[in-house]
């Protein structure tokens, strides 16, 4: 009897050990998200002070650097990773056995001759202990759901870093273009001023050129702000502050590739890799586990076993017993029904999410195809066409058929096409990153982050000529 009791207790203790390490969770997240996590991702106190981070920031950054920094530094992501500890704690808790209850009675009688009577009483909730593995199982499902949720956050953070980096690249290139336009307009303004001073053109011409220049200056100032704004968005994603914000961009946005592959079974791939669906599946399993637990609890009588010992002076008297609560009136029907309803509701949401993901896949694919087409059209056709217009205007200028103001107008039109080309390129790379995030398992908005400001090439040129 004693031996078998010990065996049961040991078995129950074994069930309670089904907890995992942090590293185990992180490994699992790496597998799901396809994104490497630094081994000590949760150790650092302030990653900005970290030597490796400093090393990355010293050299000009590319999009992959931005992703690495964001994975290590993004505070929301770190919070999400830490929140895994909540579920892990719940698993641990679920595996713990109920504590035995021990009661000691000391009784003395009026007769001093009589010895002190000692009575010991120990009680253990057997049914509760027997259900521990089921509780652990439910908590493990919840932990798994949390891992998928965290993996989704990893994918999303990587995407946000990428998109923000592309935007910062584009903002820098746009500003460079605007500065060239401003230079050209300054030259046109100076020419107009000199022509006016020499008496060769009416004041209208100089006024027109000055107005165009000053407007372009305001636009350039806006683009400067846009550049600063895009860098700040990136700083928030990368978790950078202070002098860690003085980094530079390695290169302009890459050219658009000739072909932009889109997987054949796009919808299926998106569904299969979705962390949202996987998380919901885990939650469904957890609820199913709760339903089972609740049913079992309702059907299984509450059994409490106890042992007691009594000493009446010389001898010990031993005994055992059990108390059973019969499930006659309360068989947990209400709780079970509530869990079942929760399951059904979540199942509906699961299917809705799947529909949304399929749609998001098609949407991302459309975005990418369109952005690819536009980026190629701008890069391969429109910008060269505008460059040709400018080149021919220059030849006509050399042939004294058009004046300097027409030349500047043609240049502004070319620069305006270059601005649009930069926008198209940024949209392409952002759409590419969004589709990749989706295929890795996370829906992202895919919308381009900042807005564009033109340089006003369509505004009229100098009056008169």
């Amino acid at each position, binding site marked *: 009897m004693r031996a078998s009791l010990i065996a049961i207790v040991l078995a129950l203790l074994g069930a309670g050990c089904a907890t995992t390490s942090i590293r185990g969770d992180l490994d699992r997240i790496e597998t799901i998200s396809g994104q490497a996590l630094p081994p000590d991702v949760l150790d650092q106190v302030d990653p900005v002070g970290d030597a490796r981070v400093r090393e990355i920031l010293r050299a000009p950054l590319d999009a992959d650097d931005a992703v690495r920094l964001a994975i290590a530094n993004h505070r929301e992501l770190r919070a999400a990773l830490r929140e895994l500890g909540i579920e892990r704690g719940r698993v641990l808790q679920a595996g713990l056995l109920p504590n035995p209850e021990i009661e000691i009675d000391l009784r003395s009688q009026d007769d001093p001759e009589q010895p002190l009577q000692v009575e010991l009483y120990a009680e253990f909730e057997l049914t509760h202990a027997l259900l521990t593995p089921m509780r652990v199982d439910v908590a493990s499902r919840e932990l798994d759901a949390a891992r998928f949720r965290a993996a989704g956050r990893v994918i999303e953070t990587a995407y946000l870093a990428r998109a923000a980096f592309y935007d910062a690249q584009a903002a820098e290139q746009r500003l460079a273009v605007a500065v060239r336009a401003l230079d050209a307009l300054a030259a046109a303004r100076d020419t107009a001023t*000199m022509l006016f001073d020499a008496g060769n053109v009416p004041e209208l011409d100089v006024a027109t050129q000055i107005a165009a220049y000053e407007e372009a200056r305001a636009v350039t100032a806006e683009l400067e702000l846009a550049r600063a704004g895009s860098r700040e968005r990136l700083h928030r994603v990368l978790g950078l502050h202070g002098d860690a914000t003085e980094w530079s961009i390695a290169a302009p946005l890459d050219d658009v590739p000739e072909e932009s592959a889109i997987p054949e079974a796009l919808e299926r791939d998106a569904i299969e890799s979705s962390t949202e669906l996987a998380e919901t599946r885990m939650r469904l399993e957890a609820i199913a586990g709760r339903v089972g637990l609740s049913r079992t609890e309702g059907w299984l009588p509450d059994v409490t076993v106890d042992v007691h010992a009594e000493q009446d002076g010389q001898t010990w008297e031993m005994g055992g017993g059990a108390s059973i609560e019969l499930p006659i009136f309360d068989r947990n029907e209400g709780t079970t029904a509530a869990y079942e309803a929760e399951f059904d509701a979540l199942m509906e949401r699961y299917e809705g999410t799947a529909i949304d993901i399929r749609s998001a896949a098609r949407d991302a694919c459309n975005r990418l195809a369109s952005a690819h087409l536009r980026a190629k059209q701008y890069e391969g056709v429109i910008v060269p066409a505008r460059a040709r217009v400018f080149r*021919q205007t220059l030849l006509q200028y050399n042939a004294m058929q058009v004046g300097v103001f027409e030349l500047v107008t043609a240049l502004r039109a070319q620069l305006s096409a270059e601005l649009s080309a930069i926008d198209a390129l940024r949209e392409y790379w952002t759409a590419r990153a969004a589709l990749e995030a989706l295929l890795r398992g996370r829906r992202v908005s895919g919308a381009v982050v900042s807005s564009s400001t033109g340089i006003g090439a369509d505004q009229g040129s100098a009056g008169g000529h």
Partner: protein
Amino acid sequence: MDRRSFLRWSGAAAGAAVLTRAAQVSAQDAHAHAEASATAAAAVPTFERRPASRVAAPGGQPAVITPNGVSLPWTIRDGVKVGHLVAHELDHEFAPGMRARVWGYNGHTPGPTLEAVEGERIRVYVTNRLPEPTTVHWHGLILPNGMDGVSGLNQRPIPPGETWVYEFDLRHPGTFMYHSHYDEMTQIALGMAGMFIVHPRRPVGPRVDRDFVLMTHEWKLEVGARRPDPNAMNDFNVLTFNGKSYPGTEPLLVGVGERVRIRLGNLSPMDHHPIHLHGLNFVMTATDGGYVSQSAQYPETTVIVPVGSTRVIEFTPTEPGDWAMHCHMTHHVMTQMGHGLPPMVGVDTSTVDRRMSRVVPEYMSMGQTGMGGMGEMEMDIPPNSLPMRGARGPFSYIDMGGMFTVLKVRERPESADPNGWFEHPAGSVAGPADAARLRADGIDLE
């Protein structure tokens, strides 16, 4: 900007690093187009020496010379001079480096010069290879009304692909023209015109040694375009003698003491041309209406040739040399000048050049000291264009184009090279004033 400073600027521009990709695109583009675009180094054509004119009419009247052109060959059939004009589109060179699709006759614009003698009967077949109907009007000739060639009024137009025939007697001598009288606006603008010379049976006035025919015309050919714009009413930018702009014009080579006749005809769409000769004076002896009596002739150095008129001038040069002959409207001795750009005269643009070279490395300001020297600049310009171009002269660049040619007066015209320049006697060319001479003549430059 002079050439020296241009070279300095282009050097500075090459050194300026422009790192954006777009600048590379346009630079590559510029490179790719460099071969296609023309520069100033336009070739000056060379001309054959013309043999002595044969006698074309009684009294030793010499046959006419059509510089850059030809005369229509005749055959005689039963005492009638028979000729054939084919109207068609052709590729025409205005001057080396500038060609265009024009319309003309027998491969030429103006068409071949018709040359005959008073009293002859001619039969001219006209084949229409144009895309639209045409007619030929014999401008200034008095002939039967049904031969006058005005479409609708005197005849049906000649449909494309058909050959029609004109036949009439040459009742009066004179300097006449022929041209399309169907859709004249298009057809004359594109070159459907020519000269028609009828020598008198008995010479009128002093005997001439040389008899030239020059037809003036004006065209609008956008820089870099390949077909003249027949709808143009203003801004004609290619001005021609016998279809050629200088330096494409063939010089007129004559002898000292020779009596020279120049027959000028004008079928420009819109402009009269005051034709001016240097180094001599002349009298106008005839128009397309007939002869000017000797008593009415008066000396001139410029004759206005109105649109739709001919003017015949005669002179005897006494001074050997290379004498300019040109329309005196200054815009008519330019080729493809632009009129839409602000004048740069009097503007110091060195700072502008510096600024512009940052954004347009090839940029240079032009015209701030005037337009002289533009033709000499080695700059990329659109292909098939001759903006502001002239030619290298014996002393320096001749910055005239368009309706400009050279009357070369030589002691020995028969052996002179039509491509050569006059050799000036020592001390007869203007040069810099030396200080001692200035002082001696009391010219104070302070």
